[in-house]
């Protein structure tokens, strides 16, 4: 992209979210709004609802509206390519946030999703004493989620006596996750642990576990405040969350994008580490 010359408070920042029905992304959006306010710039944002076709339309419309900087939280890394190209052609710097985007992007800021799955499940494996049956509560088939599952499976594979006995889809929606977990518990009365791909799912699973009275350990990804609060309670089934940092992530992405806009030197990729939150550090953790 060419370098831009507008002052901070003249800038229009656009961000396209994959969804906004999830505290994780809402937190991101609010942090961004704050940062943008501080700059005195203005923000427009859209919600793709996990529909890549809609997301591309949203981006096109934002470009039409004349955004100077585009932050992209793609619902699909490959499918977003044509939107990235449109932005590139329009001379708007593009930074991908949370999930990678193909095409001529100017930067990527995101969590290490594979690590997240790995860390959460490795901790759970240890807590289970390296043995027992474990189930996975899957989510929407998008790359970050699939990577978490892969990371988890790798971690669990390192324990010889741990067996992954079931994998069901909770659609990252609380009541579905609850129902599916109830059924998994029914099918495997000797289940020892569950890995949920995100905290919306884990909060649903939690209801099922608690009302079943079974002793099942739960590990998850995200760092949703409600989940962290549960984690901090004594004897909580939820024992580990590989927490992401949505606010940090988006603010860094904005900084990176503004630098690109000004033509300043900047890294093109900023991986954000995930933090493993357990009972020990839950009290201190916040987004």
């Amino acid at each position, binding site marked *: 992209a060419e370098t831009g010359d507008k002052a901070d408070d003249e800038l229009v920042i656009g961000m396209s979210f994959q969804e906004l029905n999830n505290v994780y992304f809402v937190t991101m959006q609010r942090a961004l709004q704050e940062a943008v306010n501080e700059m005195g710039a203005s923000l427009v944002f859209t919600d793709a609802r996990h529909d890549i076709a809609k997301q591309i339309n949203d981006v096109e419309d934002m470009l039409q509206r004349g955004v100077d900087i585009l932050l992209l939280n793609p619902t699909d890394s490959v499918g977003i390519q044509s939107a990235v190209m449109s932005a590139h052609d329009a001379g708007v710097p593009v930074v991908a946030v949370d999930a990678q985007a193909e095409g001529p992007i100017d930067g990527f800021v995101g969590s290490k999703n594979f690590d997240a799955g790995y860390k959460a499940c490795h901790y759970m494996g240890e807590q289970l004493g390296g043995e027992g049956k474990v189930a996975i509560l899957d989510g929407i088939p998008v790359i970050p989620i699939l990577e978490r599952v892969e990371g988890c499976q790798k971690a669990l594979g390192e324990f010889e006596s741990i067996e992954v006995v079931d994998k069901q889809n909770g659609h990252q929606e609380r009541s579905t996750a609850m129902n599916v977990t109830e*059924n998994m518990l029914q099918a495997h009365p000797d289940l020892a642990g569950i890995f949920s791909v995100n905290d919306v799912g884990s*909060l649903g699973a939690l209801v099922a576990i608690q009302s079943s009275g079974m002793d099942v350990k739960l590990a998850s990804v995200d760092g949703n405040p409600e989940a962290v609060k549960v984690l901090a309670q004594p004897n909580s089934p939820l024992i580990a969350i590989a927490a992401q940092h949505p606010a940090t992530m988006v603010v860094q992405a904005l900084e990176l994008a503004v630098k690109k806009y000004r033509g300043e030197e900047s890294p093109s990729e900023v991986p954000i580490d995930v933090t493993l939150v357990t009972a020990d550090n839950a009290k201190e953790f916040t987004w």
Partner: protein
Amino acid sequence: MSTPTSDANPQPRRQRRSRASRLLHSPVFFPLVGFIAVFIVMALANDNFLLPNNLTNVARQGAIIAIIAVGMSFAIFTGGIDLSVGPVMALSGTIMAGLMAAGWPPTVAVIMGLLLGMVFGAFNGACVAFARMPPIIVTLATMGIARGLGLIYTGGYPISGLPAGFSFFGRGEVVGIQVPILIMLLVYLVAYVVLHHTSFGRYVYAIGGNEEATRLTGIRVPRYKLLVYTISGLTAAIAGLVITSRLMSGQPNAGTGFELDAIAAVVLGGAAIAGGRGAILGTLVGAMLLAILNNGLNLMGVSPYLQDVAKGTIILLAIYIGRGRNA
């Protein structure tokens, strides 16, 4: 008419249908056959399926859709449809949660939530009945509106921190029966009585059977349509009560796709989608059929992707068995 020959007229009309024939012609017969068939298959395929604990699970999981499907039945019996049920459920539930979180007493909050569902339903009904707009498009539009309002109200955050007593509706037990199941049974009981023992019930079917004829006969069709959609809003709100209490949090995006499950329950229950024919107990059977499908496939550990395929196939088969009655 006392015509000269009327006595010599051995009118066969006096004959009543036999009990067996009545059962066979009952609209609940084929849904029940389908249900039992799937039930047996699931019981054979899973050791855990028949455990009392699991059967309670199934009933409780199915309760939400089953409750929503009551309102959907009313709408479909009149020849209409209500696509807004999912978001109305979510909206009512979040409002209840929001009011309680703001310190309102649970009873008041619950009543407000139920009222809100009814108001929303009544708005649908007014558009359909008085503005004479097609139900499918009205409720498609209000579906978006309800979803948007729910999200605006909560800002996308679920609402938690509800008073402990509120968990009664989703997790409580009365005389050994879980409250969600009890609520479901109660809703069906009321719906059954209304549909089969009141004039309003008769009008519901009449409107679905031939709206123009019903109107010309002197029935206030718009009034009853308004009522039908209000009922649908109410049952959606009741489902919202149960789900909010069960999760102990108000979820603005709960209920996505529930309208399709509810429609499936009604049609699996033997109702004609064009209206005029159907049975509320059939809907209950249909909803429970969906619930044992979800539960059974989960229990079998069928991979999630394959579950979609299996569920679709079984629904097709179930309808195929009972077809002709629904065509």
